[in-house]
């Protein structure tokens, strides 16, 4: 492997270092322990959703409903906290799982492109959310549930970060060490070939959407705890940010290339960039412009990479 190829593999890491250096130079507060913990805190939620999204994207599909799933799951969690307590988190996962399986079934059996299936389910869910929350927000009064994500059983590591690390490691093992993970890559690389070696392509697709949904749901439950309330648009940002994180991490939007391990880098780039731009008080409108360019740069970098090019 030559130097340029190595450089390309390390590109997201270099970007992280460069971002940290630039922001710290402008405002030293950036490198403070409090701020770094804040970055990790924000990253955690995004990482949980992005891990699931990676499986879908690597397969050559896409899940646009992830934001709506998270919001719905958060609202449901907020509604059932009084009766279920911590069990509300499980309810959130279940809600996500159900929507994910529905996405998968529609995608596979009706042969609708995943971008349209999830656009449709996502839009409908938004309506369900408005109905459930009566157009407003559902406050959580259970202090224990709110404290859950912030609890530091391990010093300096709020529980939400622990959650994210567990999900991340679980997904890496799933991606790199199981038949399911390998087959998502194979389907993204060449569906025909995968079929001819006996892969149940349809089943793998449904599983991937189910996983994406379940993790989106978990994400919603955690968000509700962190915010202390469930609002009708709290997960909205996830739709674009998960895709950004996955692609910036180095997974091809066309599928077949990349993986969960790299998604962490993308998540950190997104979180550090947002946080840093706030710290240096960049105008919010300009922040949005910068975020857009980051996506473009990632796509260009990936296109030039050896794994993304045609032989």
């Amino acid at each position: 492997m030559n130097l340029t190829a190595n450089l390309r593999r390390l590109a997201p890491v270099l970007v992280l270092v460069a971002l940290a250096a630039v922001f710290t130079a402008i405002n030293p507060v950036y490198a403070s322990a409090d701020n770094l913990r804040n970055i990790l805190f924000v990253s955690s939620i995004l990482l949980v959703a992005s891990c699931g999204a990676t499986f879908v994207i690597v397969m050559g599909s896409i899940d646009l409903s992830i934001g709506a799933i998270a919001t719905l799951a958060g609202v449901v969690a907020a509604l059932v906290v009084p009766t279920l307590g911590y069990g509300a988190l499980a309810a959130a996962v279940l809600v996500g799982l159900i929507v994910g399986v529905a996405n998968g079934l529609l995608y596979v059996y009706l042969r609708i492109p995943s971008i349209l299936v999830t656009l449709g389910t996502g839009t409908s869910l938004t309506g369900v959310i408005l109905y459930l929350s009566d157009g407003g927000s559902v406050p959580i009064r259970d202090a224990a549930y709110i404290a859950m994500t912030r609890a530091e059983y391990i010093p300096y590591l709020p529980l939400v970060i622990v959650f994210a690390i567990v999900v991340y490691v679980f997904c890496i093992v799933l991606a790199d060490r199981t038949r399911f993970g390998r087959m998502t890559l194979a389907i993204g690389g060449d569906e025909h070939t995968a079929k001819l070696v006996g892969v149940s392509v349809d089943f793998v697709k449904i599983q991937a959407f189910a996983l994406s949904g379940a993790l989106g749901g978990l994400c919603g439950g955690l968000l509700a705890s962190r915010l202390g309330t469930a609002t009708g648009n709290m997960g909205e940002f996830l739709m674009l940010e998960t895709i950004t994180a996955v692609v910036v991490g180095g997974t091809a939007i066309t599928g077949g290339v990349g993986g969960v391990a790299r998604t962490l880098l993308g998540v950190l780039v997104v979180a550090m960039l947002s946080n840093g731009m706030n710290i240096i008080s960049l105008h919010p409108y300009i922040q949005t412009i910068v975020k857009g360019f980051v996506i473009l740069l990632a796509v260009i970098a990936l296109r030039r990479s050896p794994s993304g090019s045609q032989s």
Partner: protein
Amino acid sequence: MTDARQPIFEMRGASKQFAGVTVMEKVDLVIYPQEIIGIAGENGAGKSTTLKMIAGIHKPTEGSMTLFGQPYAPNRYTDAVRSGVSVVFQEQALVPNLKVYENFFLSHETKFIRGGLVDSRRMIDLAEHHLKDLGLGHIDPRRLTGSYEFHDRQMIEIAKAFVLARFFDVEHPIVLLDEPTAAIGDKEVALLFESIRRFRNRASFVLITHRLAEYVTLCDRLYVMKDGKMVAEMPRPFETSRIHQAMVGRARDEEYYKEDRQLTVPDSADVVLSVDALSGGHVEDVSFKLRKGEILGIGGLVGCGKEDVARAVVGFEPFPAGGTVTVKGKPLPLRGRNKASIAADIGFVPKERKTEGIIPYLSVAANTSLAALRSVTAVPGFISGARESRLAREHIGLLRIRTTGPRQLLQFLSGGNQQKVVMAKWLARSIDILVVDNPTRGVDVGAKSEIYGLMRDLAEKGVSILLITDDLLELIGLSNRILIMRDGRLVTERPSPPDAKPAEQELVGFMV
């Protein structure tokens, strides 16, 4: 008597090399006005290269061409079109979601600019005029091309050749027909030929086809190529038997096909695969048995149904559904046959390597373990990277796959080495039967020989091979026994022992 006329096209001593391999050697060819000629030959004889040279797609390495008395050296296909030479492609080069007239003038729109805008009115008028002139008045130039049936789209392609020739002031165009009948039924073929005869007083045609009978029906004069050389030129009337005698009879190198390593498989050997009364699609009543350690070859022209037989055995949909396929005494089910076939230890090397055999973005190791993931787990359900690498390294050594290592992405390997990985994928599962469809397609000479050696190794280990191939020499050289199919039926079975291999001519007699 044709000699009395002046040729409109001449090719003199044209040769072509690709990466040092000669595919055309000193080819001479002339075309007279109002003439339909054919170029016949086996796969790889050079007929397609010759056609592409006339069309400006390949440049001759040596030799020259003249067109209408002028030196003719097109750099690309559009140059040929401007000079009055057009190709009607087998896979139709029309854009279905454009209107007919838009297809006619695609890429020539600048010639119709008036006041900065494309003058579609003039395009339509011109298109309409030419369509009527050609007797194709039923085709409306304003309609979407894709809304017409295959035959009419073919007519639109031919009309396009006339329209563009006239547009570039060529009186008598040359239309090259590149396997125009490959994808159509007898009725459409008849319609096409009738139309070509109708147009012949205003153009010359050059036909390439896989069906010899079509040369006999349509052509005035026929060229026959073999191993890149022009070996015969015959005037009407010709017979198919004489054509294929000229086409075949190539020298076969016994060492190349490792014929000395061919096993003798007695009739008493175990039957591992039995196909009985297979029917469906255009396959009818095909039955045969494959024995342990045997290489059974199925030959026949393109479209004779031999690929469908392979598909039925491995469950690659769509496949002929009638009849039964029995493996080691157990019939394969109709539903989920692909999985049942794999479970019965059958491997499949498909024809389209790039889209059916490999996953280009995955590593050599991941491609090798694709069908054998269970064998590389340490803890059940979890792939062990170490075991997977070991499996890959084992097969890299065994098959002499040229790669930088198990982690190299498959897309960076040569065609021959990719094909070896496709075979490794199945060997990693320890198979009993290997079905191969044109295993050396797009593979260089050296890798071909290695793949043949590998097939002999497998047979020695008791693996049975069902070989489907368009390459006659490969069929004869490798097989213990040869089946020939024609129009969906088995027409003959011929043993092919090392000391008494059939001649190409003998087999071709059954194929056409």
